[in-house]
Structure formats: C-alpha cells, structure tokens
C-alpha cells in the first residue's frame, strides 16, 4: 500500500464506506460474521484487562526504577503508576465479586518481556538505550491497552463495567497524549495527532 497518513486513510474510508464509524461497525460486523470462536465470558474479559494493566504497571515501575529517563519524563510518568494501580484495583474488585481468580503480575523482567513480545510491543525492558526508547515502549503499550478496552467495549453489556472501561480507556488515552508530548517535537498539537483513538489491536 502506498504511504498514506491515517487521516488520509480515514478520509478514504469515509468516502468509500460512509465514515470511519461505519468502518468500526464494519470491522465489528466482520468479526461477528467470522466463524464464532468460543464465547468469552465477562470474567475472561476482566482477566484480560487486568493482565495488560499489570504488565503496564510493571513496565512503568521498571522504567522509573532505571536511569534512562530525563527528569522531565520522570516527573510526567511518576503519577501514572498510581493510576494503573487504581485501574487494577477497580477491575480486581469486579472480578472478585464474580468469584473468579485474580491474574498474577509478571514475575520477572523476562516474563514481562515475553508478554511484551506476545503483544507485539517493540523494545524490551532492561535493554532500553535511553529516554526515547523507554517512552516509545510505554507509548506502544498504552496504545495496546487502549485497544484492549476498545475490544472489551464491543462486547461488554453491564452498565457499570461499560462505564468503568470507558473511564479507564479515556485515562489511558490521556497517558498516551502525555507520552506523545515527551516525543519530539514535544508540542501539544503533535501529542494528539488523530481524531479517533481505538488503540492497537
């Protein structure tokens, strides 16, 4: 495919399929039309979300404990650990109320790196060569996390869980914007470059 910006692609989609929203519906309808995989229960979805939040929290902690960050990046990212912890606690409350098993956090850097690889996130903890390497890894992982909430919202039916997932998804998108601000050219306009954020799936 020739190089195109996402905006151009979305415009193309709008012209050809009645809007990017229609594209979302399309993708969902396409998923629905595919041979039905085994049904994913609410507890399975919660466990998936908790697992990625645990990986995100582990990654933030690891990066903050290393020496790769500039003081500015450190100041920006430090509060996010508590946010991820709050997300995990809220999701775990929902999971516990349904009597399901809580997933465990990555037991080691190697386990976290294996999970990052499984999720196709570039960069590995312990091998980050500088500030931008670390920010890029966290940015991609935030986008994968946003994608996980987007997928969950396609299927969740309980009002309380939909509300919680929306609140957390929006918060992860705010983290994404602040990480974007740490990337050159470090301008607010470039930190929110797209009109629709669905994350990476």
């Amino acid at each position: 495919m020739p190089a195109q910006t996402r905006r151009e692609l979305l415009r193309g989609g709008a012209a050809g399929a009645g809007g990017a929203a229609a594209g979302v519906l399309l993708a969902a309808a396409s998923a629905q039309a595919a041979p039905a995989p085994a049904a994913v229960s609410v507890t399975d979805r919660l466990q998936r979300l908790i697992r990625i939040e645990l990986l995100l929290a582990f990654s933030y902690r690891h990066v903050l404990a290393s020496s790769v960050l500039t003081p500015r990046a450190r100041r920006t990212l430090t509060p996010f650990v508590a946010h991820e912890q709050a997300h995990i606690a809220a999701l775990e409350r929902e999971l516990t109320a349904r009597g399901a098993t809580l997933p465990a956090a990555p037991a080691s850097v190697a386990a976290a790196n294996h999970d990052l690889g499984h999720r196709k996130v570039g960069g590995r903890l312990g091998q980050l060569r500088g500030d931008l390497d670390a920010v890029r890894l966290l940015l991609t992982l935030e986008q994968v996390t946003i994608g996980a909430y987007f997928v969950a919202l396609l299927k969740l039916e309980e009002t309380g869980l939909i509300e919680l997932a929306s609140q957390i998804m929006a918060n992860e998108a705010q983290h994404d914007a602040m990480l974007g601000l740490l990337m050159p050219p470090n301008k607010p306009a470039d930190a929110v470059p797209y009109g629709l954020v669905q994350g990476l799936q």
Partner: protein
Amino acid sequence: MVNQTRPPGASRRAVLTGAGTALAGAIALGGCGRAATARKAVKRLPKALMESDVRILSAALALERRAVAAYVAGIPLLPHPQAKAARQFLNEELEHTGELISLITAAGAKPPPRADSYPLGHPSDGAGVLALLHSLETLQVSNYLQSIPHLSPGPVRAAVASILTVDAQHLTMVRFIQGQTPVPSAFVSGAE
C-alpha cells in the same frame, strides 16, 4: 479485529500510521457487502432502542458542534503555539461531528441541523479562550461517559468511546497549556 505487527523501535507516527493502515484494511476488506451488514446491524435494533440511540448521538453532536464553534471563535485570540494546537483539535472535533453524523444516518435518522449560534460567553483573551475550551471539553467528556452505557449495540458504544478518548486527550492538553495537572485522576470522570 485487525492484528498488526510492528518492528521494534518503530516511531510513534509509524506505529499509528500502521494502525491507520490496518483500519483502512478493515474498511477495504469490508467492501459494500459488509458495509450493508453493518448498517443492517444498526437497523435491526428495536425501534425504541434506535430512537434512544439517535437521541443520545444527536445530543453529543450538538456538544461537538458547540466545541467547533468555540475553537473557530477562540483560535484568533490564542498565541501562535497554542493556536496551532487548537487548530489540530478543531480538525479532530470536526472529525467527531462527521463520525456522529455517520452513526445517526446509519440508524436511519436525519442528523439535527446546526444551531444558528452557540452560547460561548465573551472570552477576550487567550486565558479566557482556554477556560472556555476547558469547560466545553469537560462537558463533552462528561456527556460521553454518561451516555455510552446507554447506547445499544457494542460497536456503536466502542465507536463513541473512540471519540471520548480524544476529547479526554484534548482536555489533558488544555490543562497542560493552562499550567494545571494534565492527568489529575486515574478515572476520567468529566468533573476535572
């Protein structure tokens, strides 16, 4: 859903362009038949639910249009770097109106007309404009958070959430420019 792979160290823009490519792929692969399926999915809703969704989407559209009006009116009062960001956010708000109109139309309804004017107050300088944008982005975020759980089909909820996320990012950037804590809470509530 589309899976995608990224080479280690791919730039943010490259990664996001990849996301666009994947989305475009989904659209392209969808073709006319699947577009019709998507529209049918919305049309298959019971009439009462469809009407309820259209009401929610129309209310969101009114707020997006008000935000567009505020950005258009406020940008000339902002200093250059802030105006550049505001122009970017304006484009994204316009994209949101397009998305909402697409969803309303897919539900078989007619989008409500634009208002002749919107209540924006009388900001006279950059700080006043930023305060106005802050309040309108907050209002939008709050409205989306309240309404998303009441939308009927999951794909529509997710599509509207993809708009919510961007308005939450706008709010963060406006707070940053104002010198406030950009992400004050772990849960976006629309009360920030």
